[in-house]
């Protein structure tokens, strides 16, 4: 009997196999099957959260099998406070983006095949505890994403798909070299990510610095860190709504998760050496992302750039290298997944009606679409970091953390914060307020659209008011991480 983690990783893949046997004409059956499997994954994620023992430091639900003995590769999966939130986030967004996939009308069977494979890749990345297995899942994400953007995307979909693919691929081959180098340099040779925490101090001086930079390169592209971010606006804008949700909600987190899972525990000295640069890049992300978002006239591109900005907070929190910073950055990952996921859903709602995303085409929607106005305002406020909503907590913790170690950067990050606030207020103004455009009357959000956004609203509110619901799960894991520094 496979463990619950193996089940949660491969259940979507089983779903893909099941869908493969449904005739492509029966779209309803395909959608239902995909939904059933994703709902089952979410249920399993709920069970894991319920059975997760917060008092136990370290890895839980560990599963460990010898896989390729000649190469010392093990199939090792497990979960701890760092990955728990992200796994739940992935499972949740998997269901929600699946619901939002109702807008996909062409080649439905292929769409859900790739969608399910993508789910397996994402869940596997967060749960793998063997570097090779981690790499395999990391790469598994690429191909389905390439297809999802390239077939169902907007007008420049092919360009966006290629760009996404090759940026990420370039990063991951460098990561593979680094993985092999770790194995070769460390004695006893191992790919086991738990054992490596103890063994990693063997890596000294320049070797540690170089390996850190190699891993960071791969993660930086995925996060994305300025100046490796240029694939992101293209990919986000061209991708269909549900894919954008997963891209922003989950895929970006793979990079920041890698920082916490690999860079911090294995290369603490290099992290210290590069902490200032890391924080500096974070501030650049923050300010540059916000400024670039300002300049956009495309609603979706605006949200995409605001993601770059939010990732700046995550980076800052990691650069702080203390408990508050790391807690904040991990929380911000989760929150950003929820909030930006919801933002992309809301952009999708308006795009489905207007068939344009030009901000100038909207205006005065608050009268004709009151429900939409509520959700958009709510999420925009969460996104700009209004106290009481979840976005605030993560950003606040990150800045508190960074203030104690790199105070100068904390001051600059405040500038970025103001820019983000202005940005989202302008979004609200342009879309919801003002005079309605003539002849523009769109129906308000439908039941299924509300059903997709509502859980995210609830979580945003809950985490905002009582951040302990998430923080209590990640606390012990972060404490261990801080001990490495």
């Amino acid at each position: 009997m496979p463990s619950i983690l193996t089940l949660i990783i491969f259940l979507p893949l089983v779903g893909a196999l099941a869908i493969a046997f449904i005739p492509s004409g029966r779209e309803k059956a395909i959608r239902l099957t995909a939904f059933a499997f994703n709902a089952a994954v979410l249920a399993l994620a709920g069970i894991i959260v319920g059975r997760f023992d917060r008092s136990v430091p370290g890895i839980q639900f560990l599963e460990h099998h010898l896989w390729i003995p000649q190469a010392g590769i093990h199939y090792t999966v497990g979960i701890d406070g760092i990955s728990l939130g992200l796994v739940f986030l992935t499972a949740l967004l998997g269901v929600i983006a699946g619901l939002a996939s109702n807008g996909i009308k062409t080649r439905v069977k292929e769409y859900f095949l790739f969608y399910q494979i993508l789910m397996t890749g994402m869940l596997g990345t967060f749960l793998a505890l063997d570097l090779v297995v981690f790499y395999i899942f990391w790469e598994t994400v690429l191909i389905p994403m390439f297809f999802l953007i390239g077939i169902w995307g907007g007008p420049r979909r092919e360009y966006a798909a290629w760009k996404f693919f090759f940026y990420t691929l370039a990063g991951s081959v460098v990561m593979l070299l680094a993985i092999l180098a770790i194995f070769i340099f460390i004695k006893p040779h191992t790919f086991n990510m738990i054992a490596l925490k103890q063994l990693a101090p063997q890596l000294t001086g320049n070797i540690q610095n170089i390996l850190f930079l190699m891993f960071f390169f791969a993660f930086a592209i995925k996060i994305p860190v300025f100046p490796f971010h240029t694939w992101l606006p293209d990919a986000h804008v061209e991708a269909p709504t549900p894919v954008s949700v997963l891209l922003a909600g989950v895929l970006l987190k793979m990079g920041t998760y890698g920082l916490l899972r690999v860079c911090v525990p294995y290369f603490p000295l290099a992290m210290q050496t590069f902490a200032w640069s890391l924080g500096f890049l974070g501030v650049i992300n923050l300010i540059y992302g916000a400024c670039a978002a300002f300049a956009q006239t495309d609603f979706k591109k605006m949200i995409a750039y605001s993601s770059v900005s939010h990732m700046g907070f995550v980076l800052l929190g990691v650069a702080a290298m203390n408990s508050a910073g790391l807690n904040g950055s991990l929380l911000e990952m989760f929150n950003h997944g929820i909030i930006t996921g919801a933002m992309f859903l809301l952009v999708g709602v308006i795009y489905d009606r207007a068939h344009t995303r030009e901000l100038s085409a909207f205006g005065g929607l608050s009268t004709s679409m009151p429900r939409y106005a509520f959700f958009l305002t709510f999420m925009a406020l969460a996104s700009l970091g209004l106290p009481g909503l979840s976005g605030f907590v993560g950003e606040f913790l990150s800045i508190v953390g960074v203030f104690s170690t790199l105070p100068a950067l904390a001051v600059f990050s405040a500038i970025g914060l103001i820019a983000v606030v202005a940005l989202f207020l302008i979004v609200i103004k342009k879309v919801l307020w003002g005079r309605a455009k003539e002849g523009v009357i769109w129906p308000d959000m439908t039941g299924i659209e509300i059903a997709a956004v509502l859980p995210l609203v609830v979580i945003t509110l809950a985490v905002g008011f009582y951040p302990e619901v998430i923080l209590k799960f990640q606390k012990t894991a972060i404490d261990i991480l801080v001990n490495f520094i």
Partner: protein
Amino acid sequence: MTSVMTFIYPELILVTGALLVLMTGAFGLKRRTIGLIAFLTVLAAALALPGTADVHQIIFSRMLINDVLGLSMRYFILLALGLAVLMAIATSWPDDSDAGEYYFFLLIAAVSMTLAVTAGNLMVIYLTVETLSIVSYLLACFYCKDLFSTEAGLKYFLFGALSTGLMLYGISLAYGIFHSLDLSVIGGVLAAGNVNSLLLITAAVLIFAGLAFKASLVPFHMWVADVYEGAPWPVAAFFSIGPKALGFALMVRIFLSYPAFMHSGWGAVAVFLAIATMTAGNLAAFHQSSVKRVLAFSSVAQAGYIFAGMATGSLGLKAAFFYIVIYAFMNMGAFASAAFLSTGRSTLESFQGLSRRSPSGALIFSIFLLSLAGLPPLAGFLAKFFVVWTALETRHFVLAGAVMANSVIAFFYYLKIIKAMYFDQPSTTEPLSAINIPLTGKLLLVICLLMVIYLGIHPQPVMNILLSVFK
């Protein structure tokens, strides 16, 4: 102890089968029946192979060697031939009257190769390689009414004649140095030292050139694209696997078994050749408009990855031959699916929108291409993984970096084919019919597909064999 005759039973069976198909061709049998006879011959030959090898057994006064390398390579060649024959049965060519000769040539090529990998004497190596070459020229120009095919045969002949000529010259120099062509005698002389190093280098380089031609290493790779393009699909598929593996196996047999044969500067040259081969193959594949030519250049690049394993020394042999085994399945699969799915000159345009005409065919072809590109968890990934690993372990950092950089480049042209199948609309507006793949073709594709997936998840069986070959 295997007796001398049982040792060569498989070859005897192959020759008998070859003569049989040649004769039945004259009696107006259907091409599928003839193909079936050829396939059964390969099967019988494989069954006649001994299960284990006795080391140091003398066969035909050391003309042949009975060892694990030779035995496993014979299995490998029969496997490649069996798959190629399946593919030949599934393709609509040649017609009934030519089928006899077609399979005759294929079987004779296999005999010469299985003998070459067991050869213990340079003369036997030369004779078998030359036999293979002559048969290959004929196979390459088998579409004799087609201009491309004639060109293929002629080009192959010119390059091939030159390289076997060089090899023969190298062998004659070796005879001058060692006063024997027996590999074990040569090994003894080399161990004793006292060899004119300039002569030795010349002989080694010339012999290596002949083998590099078979393995399609730079700078002996120029013939590949034109020959593959003109040759019938199954022949191209077989060329891309069998003779290539033969070239690598003979390099092991001659040079890596007797390292003193090679100059000490050899390591650096080998690394350079590996990098040059993969880069040349990948860059050339970039701008091809014909899928067949893309696959041809991809096979050059793949030879570069394989040779990268060998260039790292005896430690990398396992990685190199693991790659060869995986490569056999994925490349055969890619050639076969391209053969079944394409029409005419197999231009990239003819693949546009293919995912709608043959969803499963397009999917399977994509999986083979992605495996060639080295995408986990397919077997092609593990193959590259081990090559890079040994390169890093032996501190060949540049080589490791080159393999990784090349595999990024390679994704471009593999994905270009996949893109055409999935993203693009069919180039013609008239409704295109669904594509039907014959049963033997399906069988072949399923075998290759299962192996590409299975060996990616469970590589132990192949690794255990390789561990016994390269102790």
